[in-house]
């Protein structure tokens, strides 16, 4: 992945920050897709320090997703096709926070807007690898197929509906 200024941090890396007392810490919760199938477990929370909130859930995907060996959806133009496949060891995926609901009583993260096939087709990454904006836009396009193929990361990216449940749910997704 291309080097660029780091703007996303695992919450674990930020020793002086914690989840706000009013909000649940979903680390360790199961993630369920639109078909209510478990697709993985939340391993970490990806934080943007500037806006002081979690923007992605970092999910360790279930082996059923890895074993399906699907090619990722929507290859960026400037990346070779051989670079844009899910390789061995790439077993994490990110989910924009606005695209999930939290089932607090059962400790489940419900990705009701993302079906199982979409999870199979989403580009994964290896845990510990720094995330870049190209990967973020590729993932966004995979989850929301209405995003134009030529869409690129821009200022105010995290103001998009996918990062705000209130706005996203109003779209009927």
């Amino acid at each position, binding site marked *: 992945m291309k080097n660029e200024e780091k703007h996303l941090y695992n919450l674990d890396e930020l020793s*002086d920050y*914690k989840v706000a007392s009013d909000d649940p810490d979903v680390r360790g919760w199961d993630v369920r897709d639109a078909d209510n199938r478990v697709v993985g477990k939340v391993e970490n929370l990806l934080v943007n320090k500037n806006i002081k*909130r*979690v923007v992605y859930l970092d999910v360790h995907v279930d082996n059923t997703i890895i074993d399906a060996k699907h090619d990722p959806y929507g290859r960026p133009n400037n990346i070779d096709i051989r670079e844009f496949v899910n390789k061995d060891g790439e077993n994490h995926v990110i989910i924009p*926070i606005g695209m999930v609901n*939290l089932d607090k009583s059962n400790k489940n993260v419900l990705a009701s807007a993302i079906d199982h096939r979409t999870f199979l087709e989403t580009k994964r990454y290896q845990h510990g690898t720094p995330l870049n904006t190209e990967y973020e836009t590729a993932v966004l396009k995979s989850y929301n197929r209405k995003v134009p193929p030529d869409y690129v990361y821009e200022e105010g990216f995290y103001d998009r509906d996918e990062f705000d*449940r209130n706005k996203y749910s109003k779209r009927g997704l």
Partner: protein
Amino acid sequence: MAEIKIEKKKPVWPWIVLILLIIVGAYVFWAYNDQNKNVKQDDVITDTIPPMNDNQNDIEVETTSAY
């Protein structure tokens, strides 16, 4: 609704300082109390002296009566 905010952790050092202050305060209080106990014991000892003075007076009285 899924929104997870983060907040700065509250620093731990004020609690450590508070606990240390309580420990020091408790020690000082205990040491002061112990000193007071010693002072009270001394008072009891001085209280036993006056009867000796009374005896001396008695002796003087006896001498006078003999005269």
